[in-house]
């Protein structure tokens, strides 16, 4: 069986490679915030000079939207850790369901950073703005990233249950099980993400203008989410286990 886990540092490195430009851009240029967060007025006119859209956001609402953005992402992450810890509570000892939860959330933060970083770059070079729909995209990406991660973890749990009774404790049995699980689920992980990416692609190409960047954010996030479930979340578990065994 192909040993994926041998390359875990490579996978982490690739992740870093993708995140770093975004992080750098965030630090240097920040995000182009829309009036949803900063408050202000936007008036859009069509070619004939008619006003077709007019939006005004007072500072109170702007502040609230910003606060809500942070609260909702924080709450979602917390809820997910709790949920995974609960769903994987019968994971055989000594593996901890909490580690699964935290690994999933770290993978999820990776995805959020990728999307936010890319949009910082887009904001700087193409003036793409972050609005409250963007926050919606981030939350959806969080939900989907975990969705995908759970599919992988589920298989790991099933294989652990199968292999463990027959005398465990070989330090790399965990690594082996995770590896097997990944190879087994690779097909379906990729396929399920592919179908979602197809529908998002259709929206990007043919959908309405006002949700265009919203869908792009979803697309990037789902793509990243698939990668992080397979190449971040699982290897992270292995890394922890190896450190623990030392």
């Amino acid at each position, binding site marked *: 069986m192909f040993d994926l886990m041998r390359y875990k540092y490579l996978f982490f490195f690739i992740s870093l490679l993708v995140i770093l430009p975004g992080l750098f851009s965030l630090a240097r240029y920040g995000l182009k915030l829309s009036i949803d967060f900063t408050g202000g007025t936007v008036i859009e006119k069509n070619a004939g000079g008619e*006003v077709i859209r*007019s*939006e005004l956001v*007072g500072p109170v609402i702007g502040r609230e939207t910003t606060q809500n953005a942070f609260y*909702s992402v924080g709450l979602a992450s917390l809820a997910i850790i709790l949920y995974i810890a609960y769903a994987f509570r019968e994971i055989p000892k000594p593996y901890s369901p909490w580690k699964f939860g935290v690994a999933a959330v770290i993978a999820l933060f990776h995805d959020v950073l990728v999307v936010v970083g890319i949009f910082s770059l887009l904001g700087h070079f193409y003036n793409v703005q972050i609005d409250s729909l963007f926050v919606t995209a981030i939350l959806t990406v969080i939900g989907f990233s*975990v969705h995908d991660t759970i599919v992988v973890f589920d298989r790991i749990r099933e294989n652990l249950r199968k292999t463990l009774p027959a005398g465990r404790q070989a330090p790399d049995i965990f690594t082996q099980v995770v590896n097997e699980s990944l190879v087994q689920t690779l097909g379906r992980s990729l396929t399920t993400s592919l179908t979602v990416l197809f*529908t998002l692609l259709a*929206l990007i190409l043919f959908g309405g*203008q006002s949700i265009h960047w919203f869908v792009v954010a979803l697309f990037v996030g789902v793509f990243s989410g698939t990668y992080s479930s397979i190449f971040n979340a699982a290897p992270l578990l292995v890394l922890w286990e190896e450190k623990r065994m030392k």
Partner: protein
Amino acid sequence: MKRYLFWFVVLLTILAVIVDLPKSLPPVKFNIGNIKFDWKITRPSLDQNIFGTNFTRDLEIKQGLDLAGGAYLVFQADMDKLNPSDKDSALESLKGIIERRVNLYGISEPVVQTSKVAGDYRVIVELAGVTNVGQAIELVGKTADLSFREASSGANVATSSAFGPFTVLTDLTGKDLKIAKPAFNTQTGQPIVELTFNSDGAKKFEDMTRRDLNKQLAIFLDDQLLMAPTIQSVISGGQAIITGSFTADQTKQFAILLNSGALPAPVHVIEQRIIGATLGQESINKSLVAGAVGLAIVALFMIGSYGLLGFFADVALVIYSLLVLAIFKLVPVTLTLAGIAGFILSIGMAVDANILIFERMKEEIRWGRNKMAAIELGFTRALPSIRDSNISSLITCVILYWFGTGPIRGFAVTLAIGILLSLFTAVTVTRTFLRTFSKN
């Protein structure tokens, strides 16, 4: 049992199609031999009495503001000058006044809601179908200070003041005016403005008319003179009529302006979003195309990857789309542009469950099970995975709904409905088809 499940699915699909049809279809005309057929089919709407509650649905898609065009306004009331015990009732009367003002414009199905957020008192107004953006902006108007002033009785008529000769502020203010209405004189048919004062105001008004009989009474909105009618009689009872050479439009405008000053507490706009209708229509058309294309790509992909199984999954997917659409019409769910995106996204996610099941089936066959067993095992073994992974998406939908407004809620709702329904169709519909058609 399994036989019934199949026909249940068929029945459900037919019902869904009926609900999904647009209200009027193009007439069906054809000839067979010498017999002519000319049918006009209209889709019925729902009007049933179920268990004592009336259940009426017109089965049209309810469009959100970003699709139908319209205005979304949030007013915040400045309650500082009021007693804490009065604040709630002031908010309620504010809501009432704004509702009446909105109704003057004849907007269909306006939504006026109050909201108390962390000590802030707000009124949220949604006006669908206001296509003229400029008109909607006017409607927001100035919600300002309405004052009634008399001309100074002294000799020093200060014409340099902003209020002209009307320098004496009476104690009659906007708070005392209950409502102003445009109307027509029953005898002459001339457009007039009717004023109704509340009980406090009626008394003050009576005193004022007695004091200023045959003199002018100036009505100011902020520092703008609205009108200065002459008081022709002493008026008690709080009902007054203002006559003049007004057009019907002018009386309407006056009423609106007078009402805008008649608020128990000053309000200001803290959020205002106005979208023209054409933008929404374009978006709908584009989304339809995107949805169709997305569905097609996924369908082809499934057949390519799983062959006949994929075809069954595709049929399940089409049934799924019909069912979701029907639910949108039945609830009814207010559809926003983001909501449509959520629906299309859920199509991609709906097929997920099928993929998990099929992959599992392939594995079971690889491990030596026969086809029927593989089908059953595929479903039962994949189910925990499907359930757990979809719950996380549902958690984020709940959070999105809780923290979001308008379009964001639309997205959360459509995605959640999509996920829940996809669980149903993946398990029930696909399973049923596989069982039914695998008997060979």
